[in-house]
Every structure is written in C-alpha cells, then in structure tokens.
C-alpha cells in the first residue's frame, strides 16, 4: 500500500467534468384515484439542480430524507427519465436517450445501493451476480468471465474462491463489497453511491469507505456520493452540495462548507450532528433547533423553500426565490441573507440580481444581470464583505 492509500481524493480544480447536470427537474405526477386517473399535482422531487462531478473526483450530496438526493442519483443513472434539464455525461446529453441508446452508457455509469441485502439477487451466486454485466455487455468471452470475477473479488477484499456462494452466506459488510465488485465490473467512469455505508455497522463502515477510496484512486472513477451522514461525506468528498426540498441550497468545497457555511439550513444541519470529540472534551456546540418537519414537495412554500423553518426569514423570502449565488471562488449559496452564523447581512444581498427591492417587490426595468443556476463556477463572484464583484 502506498503512502496515499485510504485517503480522500483531493480537489482538483483543473479536472474536466465527467458529469455536468443543468437545471435537472423531476416531477412525479400525483394521480387522482378515480376512473380517469387525472393528474392532480406533482411531487417536485428535484427542481432545477445543477452541478458538476470532476473526472476521477467526487461530489457529495447531502440532505434529509425526501430532499431529492436519491432521485438525483437515479436520474443520473437514468433509472428515471427527467422531466426537464440536461445530464451531460462525457460531453453527451443523456437526459432523454432511449433504452437502446442507453445500453452502451450503462457500462460507464454504475450504481452502489444502500441495502446490500436487497440489492443482490438471493438466488444467484456471487459469481453470477458479479459476472452478469460481463455477459450482458459481452465484454469478455464466456470462458474468461470467471477469472475476471475472481480478480474483482480480490480487488474488493473478498476471497476469490467464494464465487459460488450465495449472498446470504456473507455478512453485511461483505455483501456491500459484492455490490461494489459488481459496479466495478465494467470499469465505469462514474459511480453513483447512494448511501453506500448507512446500513452497515460502524466498524464495517470504515472498511467500506477505505475500499471506495482505494478503488477511486486506482481506477480514476468519478463519484457522486449521496449520504445523510455529514461526517462521512466530509471524509470522502472534497466538494459537497446540500439539498433541501429538491433544490441545492449550498454548494462549496469541503473547507468552506464545513467551517464557513453561509446558508442557515447548512448551519442547522451541521449543528445537529452529535460530536464525540466535542463532548469528550466537555464542550457542546450550540445547537440550532429546526422546528417541524420538511414541508411537502407536492406544494412547496413560495419563494425560498426553507423559509418556513428559517429563523431569519423576512418578507422577501416568501416572495422571491433566492438564486444560487456565487459568493466565493468555489462557493455558491441560495439565500437572500447569506453569511456565517451570527454575521448574516441586514439587507438582502440579492436585490440587484433579482431585480427587486428589500421587501421582494419587483422594481420596474431591473433585470437579472448574471446567468444563474449554471453548473460549475465562474471566475468572478459577489464578495459579501464589499458587496462588489470580485475575481481571481
């Protein structure tokens, strides 16, 4: 093992994106349960999400259950067809490809599921499960499948001789390794890991995280890492997006997001994580209490979707939806009053961009002056201290 083994892939700002998602939207129809199945509303599971995953790098996606992070993962693997928006994978928009056109792409984008007990077929041997992609895509001749399967089992730290065992003969951590081996079979360029460790015991979680970091480094795989555990995401991803009710509310590099969060939701989320070391040395972080539950995505609040639970919400928040505004070299936040805890600005910073006054009423003649909701980052941003545009 090299010196760098078991370490997170560092942020490479020059890496070209393997995946660029723009304005991705997924509305699930809610049907009236009658004869005519009239559509009476939509669950706005994902509503205008844009981000990039760098080649060989990783982006973390965090949020509470129901915020749309898993749906985003499933859209990217095209298990769903998006309502609107673009998914550019390796320079090609795959958002509306047909099943036939998707087949070659399935090799490139693979998925690791949360629950290894239900994502492996109990009646197939491990060899059949891991080898199936090879046969389907006819990558290797049939007599070469077994050696390749054994090679993969070895990569993920399982005994290669166990290829003819069934999933139930393995423990939870080992089953997750089988799932990882299956996803590596076709040497994908992008892996969508949907809560890959949350079903595992703590001592096993670390094993699987280390394994994922090793395979990422060895094969140069881009990761979209979806999880609700903020500490695990921080450990794995140099860049993280926080989702709330179908939208990205803050996206930044790790250092900025965890040490200088600017969105009140990110601040609340971070303050809610119980911390062993803090408690061990006697301290306890001040917790920001979030009251109530996440509102229904069928009928989300107007304006800012977080305003119903936000302690800073003002008139403008209910009228105007805050744009995802770039406030640092690699930091975007969707809030009218972005700032570190206790240092939020008195006046909304977004008025000029949205073309409204401080109370959210439209100002005639004013228009939005920059392109918003684009994936990736600009070379200039709004400096919150000076209120001017700054750049590198």
């Amino acid at each position, binding site marked *: 093992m090299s010196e760098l083994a078991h370490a997170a892939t560092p942020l490479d700002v020059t890496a070209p994106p393997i995946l660029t998602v723009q304005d991705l939207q997924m509305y699930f129809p809610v049907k009236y349960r009658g004869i005519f199945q009239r559509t009476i509303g939509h669950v706005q599971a994902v509503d205008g999400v844009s981000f990039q995953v760098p080649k060989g790098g990783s982006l973390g996606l965090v949020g509470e259950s129901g915020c749309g992070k898993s749906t985003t993962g499933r859209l990217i693997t095209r298990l769903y067809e998006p309502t609107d928006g673009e998914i550019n994978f390796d320079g090609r928009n795959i958002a509306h490809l047909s099943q036939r056109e998707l087949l070659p792409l399935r090799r490139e984008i693979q998925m690791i599921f949360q629950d290894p007990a239900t994502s492996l077929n109990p009646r197939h041997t491990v060899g059949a499960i891991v080898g199936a992609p090879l046969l389907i895509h006819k990558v290797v001749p049939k007599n070469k499948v077994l050696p390749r399967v054994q090679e993969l089992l070895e990569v993920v730290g399982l005994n290669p001789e166990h290829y003819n065992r069934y999933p139930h003969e393995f423990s939870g951590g080992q089953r997750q390794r089988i799932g990882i081996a299956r996803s590596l079979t076709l040497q994908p360029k992008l892996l969508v890991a949907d809560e890959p460790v949350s079903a595992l015991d703590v001592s096993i979680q*670390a094993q699987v995280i280390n394994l994922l970091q090793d395979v990422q480094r060895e094969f140069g795989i881009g990761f979209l890492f979806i999880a609700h555990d903020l500490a695990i995401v921080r*450990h794995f991803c140099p860049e993280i997006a926080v989702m709330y009710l179908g939208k990205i509310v803050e996206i930044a590099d790790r250092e900025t997001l965890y040490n200088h969060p600017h969105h009140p939701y990110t601040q609340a989320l971070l303050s809610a994580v119980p911390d062993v070391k803090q408690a061990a040395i006697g301290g306890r972080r001040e917790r920001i209490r979030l009251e109530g539950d996440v509102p229904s995505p069928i009928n989300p609040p107007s304006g800012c979707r977080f305003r119903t639970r936000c302690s800073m919400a003002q008139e403008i928040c209910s009228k105007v939806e805050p744009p995802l505004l770039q406030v640092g070299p690699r930091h975007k936040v969707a809030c009218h009053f972005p700032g570190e805890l206790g240092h939020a600005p008195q006046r909304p910073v977004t008025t000029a961009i949205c073309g409204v006054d401080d109370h959210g009423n439209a100002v005639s003649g004013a228009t939005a002056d920059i392109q918003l909701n684009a994936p990736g980052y600009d070379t200039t941003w709004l400096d919150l201290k000076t209120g001017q545009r700054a750049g590198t």
Partner: protein
Amino acid sequence: MTSYLSVRDLVVHFPTVDGVVKATDGLSYEVERGKTLGIVGESGSGKSVSSSAILGLHRGTNAKVSGEILLDGDDLLQLNDEQMRRHRGRDVAMIFQDPLSAMHPYYTVGNQIAEAYLVHNKVSKKAAKARAIEMLDRVGIPQPDRRVDDYPHQFSGGMRQRAMIAMGLINNPGLLIADEPTTALDVTVQAQILDLLQDLQREFNSAIIIITHDLGVVAEMADDVLVMYAGRAVEYGPCKEILTHPEMPYTWGLLSSVPDLTADTNAKLIPIRGNPPSLLSPPPGCAFNPRCDHRDKVPGDLCTTQVPDLTPARSGGNHVKRCHLANPDEVYVAEVLPEIAPDLVKETP
C-alpha cells in the same frame, strides 16, 4: 443510594439446533433515577437482547434467562407473568428503533397511546384519550386534539417517534429503555428527539437506557457508558472517562472508525478489521482477540486462552475494562490517540 435498576450477572442464552447462542453472558450494570446509561455495540453484541430481558420479553420463548434484574428492589426474573405485566409499561417502558413497525397500522395513534394508560389505570376511555392528547402535546405534536385520531401512516417519521415516546412515558415510568431511538431519523430530527428525551427526563426524573451504535449520541446523552462486545461488557464507566481515556482496544476501534466534523480530512479512518464474531462459537479467550491490533503486547497466549476479567481501569474511578493489556492508558496515548486525533495531541503536550 441504591440504584433504581440493577442488573447482576444477566445471562440470556438461546438454544438452537446448531448450539447455544450466548447473546448475553454475565452482564452487570446499574442505573439511577434521573441518569442515563448508554449501551454501545455492534449488531449482535447483545445490547438489545439484554434490554428486552428487563421487560421480560423473552418469556414464552425458549430463551434461558438467569441472573438478577432488580428494579427498585424487586427481582423481575422471579415474578410470574401476571406480576410482570403489571410492571411492564408502568415502571419500565421501551421505545423502539422503527416506530412504523412498532405501531399497529389499523389503530389510531391516540388509541394505542391511551391503551397503555387504560391497562394500568382505572379510568374511563374518555379520560384516557384526554391523557393521550396531553402527552402528544407534551412531546410536541402540533394540534394534538386533531392528530390523536390519525393513523400511524399519517405521521412523519419524527412525529411517529414522538408518539412512541408519548406512549412510553404516559404512565410516568421510572425506567425508559430507548432502543436505537434515532437511528431511522434524519440528523435534525434526531437532535429534536434527543432534546425531547432530555427535557422529559428532567421533568419525570426517570432513568434512561439508550441503546445505540452512534458514539456521538452517547456522548451527548449518557452519564455512564457500557460498551458491549459478543454478549459481554468490555468497558463500563462514566461517559466522559470512557471517551477521553478508553482502555479497551475495541472502544479505541469504535472511536477511530467514525469520522467526525472537526477531524483532519487527511486523517485515515482506521476500521476494526474482520467481522463481529459468531455468538454460537465465540473465539476462545477474549472475544475481541482476532480483531485486536494490540494482542502482541500481551505476554504469552493469554488473549487467546483466558477471558479477561472486568478490572478497574488505570485511570481509576468507577471505570472498568476487560482487557489483558498491562498499560492500556499508555498504549492509547502513545499509539491510538495520534492516529485518531492528531489535533488533540498537539493541544495537550
């Protein structure tokens, strides 16, 4: 002062066709009123099994339970089923990990909460329902008089867990056992529920046993911590003591394998290698020895032949540990701490 609950040498064995599963093997601990005990361990370490024994939930199964469970002086294991039933729900209550499967889907939430009250109190159904509404209000359910007639599926996950807590506390029990109460919940909701439990504990002066695998939850909630491994206590003592001066390699492993929000991001996660042992045939000697990185520091083959006793930790106090290492505190400071918290080591030279 005697403890409200005192468990002594509790043994729960399940005979199976393959042999005896020693789910809990000689477990002792105490909890006082108003205090919280955190029980930590992996799945299959016996933490849930030992706690359901307190409620007598192994009665009517083929489990062999022995030892003593003294609740306010009464040995619960000596009681007959009828006497046990009088305690269950009144003096000891339990809340479960998954409130959706712990509640009956065909009955309204109010009905299920009121039932717990009706069983132990001679009151009218109307009074019981009023009490259920009062409890729902107490645990922070909005519009309790309306929500009391809802079915469990109409509640969100956090609200269901609140309703479970209301059900558990309706008779003001002296002991509340919370089995992974927040594992199925989001962090923000988890924080709400933990706050609620602490508020209610102050109000009712109950003893709480919180079973979890999340050391963070333990650190926030517990006064004492019991670390379990393969059916036995491997470390037991005051929470702060265990988190700052752990003396058992398994506890070190637990601490080093979870990332936290302040750690150096280049720090490695050090997993505990291997898998939890089978309770059918646990390894001879110390059950943790096949996964232990510090076995070679113990002379001879003590680790693989002899089960270590629970001995007082070197740091003193009420802290006990089950390990053959002669100087675990020194090993921890010299070898483990620099790996898991390089920043802490620098701060305290």
